[in-house]
């Protein structure tokens, strides 16, 4: 009987957390009464695939071989999930029953089958393709819906629409490998909010510019209606569009969550995620049990706007602390730990006190002193350390508006966007050969900052003096230098000067006395 035993092997992969795991699928056909088993710690979605596979094979005009069909997915000790194994199993069954010829030794396939034999993509195909980037396969078969994933991950694929097409490819032995190109970003069509709405708010205007130019965590404090949300949107508008590298990173995440299958021009816009105090911790950070990324990961390479920051519980605020510094979220579930990138630009907004009037007119503020003190004190010291820029916003009255129009220097949003882009280029040039080549001033860290940032002794001295006056921690001190660096970069100056530091100092958060 041994001679009749036949096995075949197809490669595939699944998504675990934010990483792809490559698996080997072995299909064996042995004589006996017809049966179909899938083993290898599979979840119910994979078990259900039996019916889909068998129906799809039949509807594509092929036969179900008679005998025991055993499918083993290894490594067997890892729990697997997802419906992408439909296609490789079907290919294996057709090959092991000699209905289609074999091709080479290594075939990779991934895709979900519909009952009539169509091949569909499944969430996370981007991640899966990235995981096989460095492996050699004779053929990579994916759904034709996965063109953008292939383009982003730079893995040439054979795109198939139905199971029948797959069989034809095997029969003719021509797999037609392609590497599609990404759709081009049409920057002119992107619409962003106009910078001039911040007229009359000089400090706030400068702050948003610096935040965008240097990727600095920012805190906006002002009464309701003073334009905090607008200011945050302007920050996003000033940021350069995503580069293709960054686009792959953000796309793989939204692709993993099944939010988007195709790249439209909109995807070149940086993410802008707005969270409000009603959010819970797992939605904000991500959930460990489901290994699902939260809002702070979706804001990766974009803006995380936290509105009404002081209405959050202090525990929630402190959840943000580590990602704001390390730019990565680590979730743990049992022994498994996964990391999601979360290099977001933090923009927080808060009222100065509970009633919100303290900055406008202290006499109109109805808060008691204790409530007022407690309000912003919710922000812990370590959290404040990580805030690079802080600005107050005021409701602009009509008179001030008139005056500001008189004094206006007609800065245009487009010009500022160009300034920010130029500033980013300078920074990329500086950090190109460091551990973190994509870093900007706000996200860069190093032990000998003063050398990298080109700050001479006198500049460090004034910064130290400022730190002792303001009672800064070492972290705040470093961040002061980095903000100073951004100011110098905007002016395209090589060396950090005393004035950069003193200006940077005016943006540090101060406790309201």
């Amino acid at each position, binding site marked *: 009987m041994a001679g009749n035993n036949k096995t075949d092997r197809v490669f595939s992969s699944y998504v675990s957390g934010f990483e792809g795991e490559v698996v080997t699928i072995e299909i064996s056909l042995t004589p006996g009464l017809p049966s179909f088993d899938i083993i290898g710690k599979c979840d119910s979605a994979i078990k259900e695939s039996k019916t889909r596979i068998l129906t799809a094979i039949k509807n594509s005009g092929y036969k179900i071989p008679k005998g025991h069909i055993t499918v083993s997915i290894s490594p067997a000790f890892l729990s697997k999930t997802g419906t992408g194994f439909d296609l490789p199993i079907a290919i294996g069954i057709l090959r092991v029953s000699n209905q289609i010829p074999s091709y080479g030794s290594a075939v990779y396939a991934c895709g979900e089958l519909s009952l009539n034999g169509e091949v569909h993509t499944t969430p996370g195909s981007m991640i899966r393709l990235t995981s096989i980037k460095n492996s050699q396969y004779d053929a990579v078969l994916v759904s034709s819906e996965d063109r953008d994933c292939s383009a982003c991950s730079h893995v040439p694929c054979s795109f198939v629409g139905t199971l029948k097409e797959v069989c034809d490819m095997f029969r003719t032995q021509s797999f037609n490998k392609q590497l599609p190109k990404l759709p081009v970003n049409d920057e002119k069509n992107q619409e962003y909010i106009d910078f001039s709405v911040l007229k009359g708010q000089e*400090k706030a205007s400068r702050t948003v510019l610096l935040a965008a130019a240097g990727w600095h965590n920012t805190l906006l404090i002002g009464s309701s209606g003073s334009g905090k949300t607008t200011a945050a949107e302007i920050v996003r508008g000033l940021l350069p569009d995503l580069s293709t590298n960054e686009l792959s990173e953000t796309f793989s995440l939204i692709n993993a969550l099944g939010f988007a299958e195709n790249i439209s021009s909109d995807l070149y816009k940086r993410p802008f995620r707005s969270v409000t105090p009603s959010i819970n911790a797992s939605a904000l950070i991500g959930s460990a049990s489901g290994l699902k990324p939260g809002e702070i990961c979706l804001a990766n390479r974009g803006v995380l706007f936290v509105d009404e920051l002081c209405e959050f519980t202090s525990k929630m605020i402190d959840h943000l602390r580590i990602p704001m510094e390390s730019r990565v979220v680590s979730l743990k579930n049992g022994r498994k730990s996964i990391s999601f990138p979360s290099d977001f630009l933090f923009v927080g907004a808060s009222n100065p006190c509970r009633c919100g009037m303290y*900055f406008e007119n202290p006499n109109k503020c109805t808060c008691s002193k204790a409530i007022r003190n407690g309000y912003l004190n919710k922000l812990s010291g370590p959290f404040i350390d990580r805030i690079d820029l802080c600005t107050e916003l005021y409701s602009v009255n009509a008179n001030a508006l008139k005056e500001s129009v008189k004094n206006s220097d007609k800065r245009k949003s487009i010009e500022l966007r160009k300034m920010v882009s130029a500033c980013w280029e300078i920074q990329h040039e500086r950090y190109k050969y460091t551990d973190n080549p994509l870093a900007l001033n706000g996200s860069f860290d190093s032990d000998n900052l003063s050398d990298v940032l080109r700050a001479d002794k006198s500049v460090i001295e004034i910064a130290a003096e400022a730190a002792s006056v303001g009672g800064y921690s070492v972290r705040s001190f470093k961040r002061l230098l980095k903000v100073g660096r951004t100011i110098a970069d905007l002016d395209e100056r090589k060396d950090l000067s005393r*004035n950069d530091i003193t200006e940077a100092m005016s943006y540090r958060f101060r406790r309201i006395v």
Partner: protein
Amino acid sequence: MNLRSKLLWSAAVNLGFLNNRDITELLNLGAIKVFYEIFTQEFFNRINNIECSDKVLLKLKEIRRNLSNINNEAAKYEKIMKEKGMFVITEEDDDYPYYWKCLTGMPRLIYGIGKRDIIETESNGAIAIVGSRKCSRYSEVVTAEFTSAFVNSGITIISGMASGIDRVAHQTALSNNGKTIAFLAGGVDNIYPWSNKDIYDALSNNGLVLSEMPPGTKAMKQYFPSRNRLISSLSDTCLIMEAGQHSGTLHTASFAAAQGKTVFVLPNSIYCEENRGGLELIADGASILIDAQSVIDEVSECCFYKLINSGKSIISKKIEDEINDTATRIVDELKVKPRSADELVRITSVSYSELSIILSELEIKGKIIVQCGKYALTI
């Protein structure tokens, strides 16, 4: 001569011919412009035309009759003053303390010896440090420690040159090259207690000794309470380091409270009899002295208001030398009221990035602070 007429006034008061209230009456009537005008011949000529109360008229006539007596007394003062190098400060002078202008019953004329400019405490603040003559080692140590902290912040130390706490306070201030003022109960030429001669000598060279009593007056028991009112009146806060149950220090505390100053009391053991009075002050609601910083904060707040109200601009003069015109403009604007960065941009028409540099420089120098989102002068 001006000095002579001032001394004549002082002599008349000292000899009991006149008191403060009579002068106030005359000033209010517009009969005289300054208090020492009554000793001019022109004034004596028009005495009968003044519509003052009979009592005052009687007194003035009495003075005219005893003018030679008064003259002799004043000559005596002038002689001592010349010998010792003393000076007088009157309410007409620019350096007459701002606090005294706000309070009633403060001396119109005060005698001093030492460095006259120390009396200017509007910009740097002053703290009264008082306590028992027989003090415990604990309060002595604390007094020395706190005094040096205050002096190093530039604050003037005011005390009464008595032995015990007063002595420690003056001594520490002097050894730290700080400013210190002693108020004596008798005349400033009258060293009391004699055991503090070393302090007196140091004070008359590097500090300031003041008294409202004319030169040659012996320190008498009944003068001490009124001396204590002067100690508290010139200071921004009053620190009671140790006070027995019937101590004179308690007078200083109650004067300070009446003058609206914060009173800090150093807490001590309940078994320490010498500090019974201090503990009772705490029970009555005085602030407890725990650290130097809270006192310094209190003083700087007082200074802030003093400077704004007195309209002096000692600070801005210094800043002008250090920074530029914009800084001066900013400081001038902030004198009116605290302002936000945006308002300052509008006022000065300087871009925020330039303005912020100046603001931060001023902040590093401790001239301005940010309060409820706005920049304000510290002092």
